[in-house]
């Protein structure tokens, strides 16, 4: 479905992509992870024919995105990072524009409204919608012409957990119907929940890629959180299960009967990312 080889992009002096390679199969949900400025949006813009790379090749459905952008845009749906709908128009009017531009039937539009659960809001002006509903409107617009591949740039950015969860369910449903989804995010939990495969982008380079579970196994350090009784009070210890001293410590506490609780701590994608890039969590994840 998508092949990227040696893709490079510069904005003047600034290097946005340093020669990345990846491929995405038909029907996958693929996540591009990374902090702001990592090159995620640039990659999406190249794949959707909005930017011409400085070097390397990209193919979407066998076609070069920049040269064949008119043809490809009929096959791809794009959800941009910004909520760029027509605020003065209603939900229905917003979608009608793109229904006409794409030559989609009214039945097709009604079907999409139902799919994204916007039927009850179709006469509401876009500016009066909540952030979650605005995101649904953008998704409806991206899906209107029944694309084969969907590019989502930060699909749940700024949404509350409930709205984000609704979007996640919808994306899983769409993927179940055979749509290939490529999403960028700096929300590691979201990607962990949705994506079959991910690539970590950092400063224009892919620093790791693979299935989230495999990555966690490869890069993660399993830990054990142990609550121990010490001098009449409770103290929490975190033991590295791969560490040499951990077993000895645990054995001693067990023998002394001081262990109150013990929980395993699984590594998260966020932990792996910090480990890979060596940046602080606040700087990296909460952007």
């Amino acid at each position, binding site marked *: 479905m998508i092949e990227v080889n040696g893709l490079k992009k510069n904005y003047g002096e600034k290097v946005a992509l340093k020669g990345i390679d990846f491929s995405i199969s038909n029907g996958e949900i693929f996540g591009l992870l990374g902090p702001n400025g990592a090159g995620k949006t640039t990659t999406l813009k190249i794949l959707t024919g909005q930017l011409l790379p400085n070097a390397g090749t990209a193919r979407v459905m066998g076609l070069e995105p920049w040269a064949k952008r008119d043809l490809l845009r009929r096959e791809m749906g794009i959800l941009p990072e910004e909520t*760029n709908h027509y605020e003065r*128009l209603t939900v229905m009017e917003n979608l009608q524009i793109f229904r006409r*531009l794409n030559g989609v039937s009214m039945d097709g539009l009604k079907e999409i409204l139902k799919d994204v659960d916007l039927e009850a809001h179709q006469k509401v002006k876009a500016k009066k919608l909540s952030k979650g509903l605005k995101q649904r409107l953008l998704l409806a617009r991206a899906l209107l012409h029944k694309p084969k591949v969907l590019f989502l740039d930060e699909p749940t950015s700024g949404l509350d957990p409930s709205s984000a969860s609704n979007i996640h369910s919808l994306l899983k449903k769409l993927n179940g119907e055979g749509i290939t989804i490529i999403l960028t995010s700096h929300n590691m939990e979201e990607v962990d929940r949705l994506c079959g495969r991910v690539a970590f982008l950092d400063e224009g380079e892919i620093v790791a890629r693979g299935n989230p579970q495999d990555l966690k196994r490869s890069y993660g350090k399993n830990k054990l959180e142990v609550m121990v009784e010490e001098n009449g009070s409770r103290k929490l210890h975190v033991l590295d299960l791969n560490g040499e001293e951990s077993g000895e410590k645990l054995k001693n506490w067990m023998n002394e009967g001081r262990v109150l609780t013990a929980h395993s701590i699984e590594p998260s994608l966020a932990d792996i990312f910090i480990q890979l890039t060596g940046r602080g969590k606040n700087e990296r994840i909460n952007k």
Partner: protein
Amino acid sequence: MKESINRIGAIFLKELQDLKSNMGVLIMYILPIAIVILYRSFLEDMPPGFILGFGLLFIFGLIGVYGPAINLAEEKEKKTLEVLILSPAKPLEIITGKGLMFFVTTSLSGLVISFLSGVTPMNIWLVILGGALVLATCIFLGMIVGILTPNQTVAGTVVTPVYMVLLLFPLLSMGQENIIATISRALPTRYFFNIVLFLTDFPEITELNLFSHFLFLSVSFVVSLFILIIVFRFRGLPYK
């Protein structure tokens, strides 16, 4: 071809729908009509031909120049132009649909002004032809500004002096021989204003070379279209 016409129609309808709820632009349509009504009501000595010419220049300049400039700049600013560019609509279809909407709605407002001015010019088809040429020229100028400016604030700043010159210089230069009169000889609005005055028996204009006036309007139309094409080919429809 049919698909292209459908897409131009989709942009046209979208602009029309947006216009309904865009109070800022609606006021631009109402203002010239209101001023014509006021002139007719309170300035009884003013020749109706002058009111007609002034009203048409007012609305053609105001909506023709401001409308497309602000519209394109707003779409860039709110990043909605990006969505249109990413749709099957081609940039040429987008500006054609937008231009057509401003042309049709402004022409209809011009008809209302003609009716309210209380005068029927001789050879009304000449006024319609001249008006169409001036309006199209104004729309082309507005689009050039809209393409070249990054946001509504800059577009408004650039377009205001253009509009003021197009509207006021023909009026201020009447019967004058000064710098304003010299500049206004290069303005299509001056020639259109003269045509309207002549065809409505305005006392101070008893003779007019209609051919040379229409020739100037046609040249203005072609030159502004040529500049628009150059700007469009050079810049495309930049959405960032």
